[in-house]
């Protein structure tokens, strides 16, 4: 059983006009096996929250805490956080020229488990995971995210989620830019990781569409850098119908 606690998190970024505060006291707790959806308007700070948990150097935590089973995540480097069991499926995964998917995945797996995976087993796992996500086998010879379509990038993120087996995953708009078929395939991947490894999920999205395939236990409305309201799956339906007007007006 793993617990990720985000407490009173305040985060700023450095801009040309000086420091800009984006997160203003976020409180969230995610446990193994739970699925949390975070919904909110553009620019409300959802990606900032995701990056801050993963430890992106651009974001400065000015107040608050992030704890993983009581351990201070803010003290950990980016790779230590991953090795502690955190995973971020990125909204815009970056290209890494000259580094093949196969080399990348094997290096990551080795780093996370502390030893190189047994070749035969690894090849099998990789083939199965790619088959499940309907990815061509020659995909592994391509360079990481280079020339990938939007859908391929997202499948590649979920492929990593399934192979690297984290304890808690943050999925930043994994659904955006996917057609219905791809959305189903990707959702199945998340559901498999959830069912097989007891993954805890924080799912960032704009749309309820994905919530038809991945059933959230909790829904959080994110506005102006903090959680404005929380509820169950029914809250998502309400947001879909009513939008965020109610919250954004209140926040101003």
């Amino acid at each position: 059983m793993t617990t990720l606690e985000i407490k009173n998190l305040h985060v700023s970024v450095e801009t040309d006009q000086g420091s800009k505060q984006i997160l203003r006291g976020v409180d969230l707790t995610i446990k193994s096996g739970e699925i949390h959806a975070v919904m909110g308007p553009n620019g409300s700070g959802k990606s900032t929250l995701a990056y801050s948990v993963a430890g992106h150097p651009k974001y400065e935590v000015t107040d608050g805490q992030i704890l993983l089973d009581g351990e201070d995540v803010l003290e950990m480097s980016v790779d230590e956080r991953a090795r502690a069991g955190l995973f971020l499926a990125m909204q815009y995964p970056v290209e890494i020229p000259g580094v093949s998917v196969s080399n990348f995945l094997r290096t990551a797996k080795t780093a996370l488990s502390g030893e190189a995976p047994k070749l035969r087993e690894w090849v099998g796992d990789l083939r199965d995971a790619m088959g499940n996500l309907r990815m061509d086998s020659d995909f592994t010879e391509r360079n990481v995210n280079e020339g990938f379509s939007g859908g391929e990038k997202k499948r590649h993120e979920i492929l990593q989620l399934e192979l690297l087996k984290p304890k808690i995953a943050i999925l930043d708009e994994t659904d955006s830019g996917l057609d219905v078929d791809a959305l189903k395939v990707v959702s199945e991947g998340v559901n498999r990781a959830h069912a097989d490894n007891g993954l805890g999920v924080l799912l960032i999205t704009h749309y309820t569409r994905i919530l038809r395939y991945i059933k959230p236990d909790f829904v959080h409305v994110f506005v102006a850098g903090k959680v404005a309201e929380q509820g169950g799956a029914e809250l998502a339906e309400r947001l879909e119908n009513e939008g965020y007007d109610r919250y954004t007006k209140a926040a101003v």
Partner: protein
Amino acid sequence: MAAQHGLEAHSHGNVPIQTRSERPRSTSVSDFPELSNRQEIWRYVPLDKLSGLDKEVMGELTESEVTAELASGTSMRWVDSTDPLVGSAGLPEERVSAAAWTNASKTLVIEVEAESETTDASFLKIAPNTAEAKALHVVVSVGNHAKATIALDHLGQGVLGENVEIVLGDGAQLNFVTLQEWESGSTHVSTQFSKLGRDSSLKHVVVTMGGDLVRVVPAVSLSSAGAEVNMYGVYLAGSGNYFEHRPYVDHIAENCVSNVAYKGALQGAGAHTVWVGDVLIRESAVGTSTYELNRNLLLTDGARADSVPNLEIETGKIEGAGHASASGRFDDEQLFYLMSRGIDEDQAKKLVVRGFLSEVIQKIGIESIEQRLISAIEAELEKAGA
């Protein structure tokens, strides 16, 4: 026809390449002025590190300092430099090349028999192991329709002024590699002239990993129709290294193809690399296709990469011509992505640098050199803990 954009933008401040083709050629040192940073071709070079290579008199490399491992169909011999083979691909255009030329009384000839074909590489180790300035002249001659791979490996400590002539017969295919793996305290200026026969194809690879001052100037003259040249370069410069590469392609005949791609990584204070890529497409070079590229990755502060592509086109009747040049810092987003998957910073950097250089490394086509290069890169990154 592809874009000629950026032509003016890149050419200003430099001597037009066309005048390069009109430079005086001579084997006599006194025909050229003393070196100065005011001359375009020496403008970046730390002249105090030349260690005597611009002097009228110097020693010459002897047979014992060159060891060879030759593939079938390839032979090697030393001849007097009065041999008609000498000078068949080009003549010196500046003082250091002229000094190396006149001081080499013997010439090393590497000959590939016409129509012989092998995938095995011939390796020549050039290891002077002295701080005294020395001259060397090499002629590589590949017979008609022959196919060969030849690597010149420069290592140890040395001060070497070198001219390399490469002559390809009709339909010949040569994979030529020049490696500069000098220890510190070394200076090496290599001027290379290539002349390509009809429908021949040259792959010219430059790998520079060590030396206080290394300057490689490979010129390729495409004077027979249908010839193709691919010029690749990889370099890794650390503190105390000055590496300069000046590839030059002279398109004279019709329907020739040239492709130039150099990539370098720099780390450490004072690491300095210079790349000047000249491509001249003469009026007679109808149907030319050319592309040149140079990219540099700066791993730390205090390193400097100069990159100047020059493309000069005298005919509108070409297939395509383009160039690209960029030097940039380590991409934090790439490191973040890799580290967010549990890969530690050192390893993430290695992956990024290897990936960056691999596009060119993969083109070398000699497995043992590719592997050595990758290990050398890793060792270098390890050393500085970049």
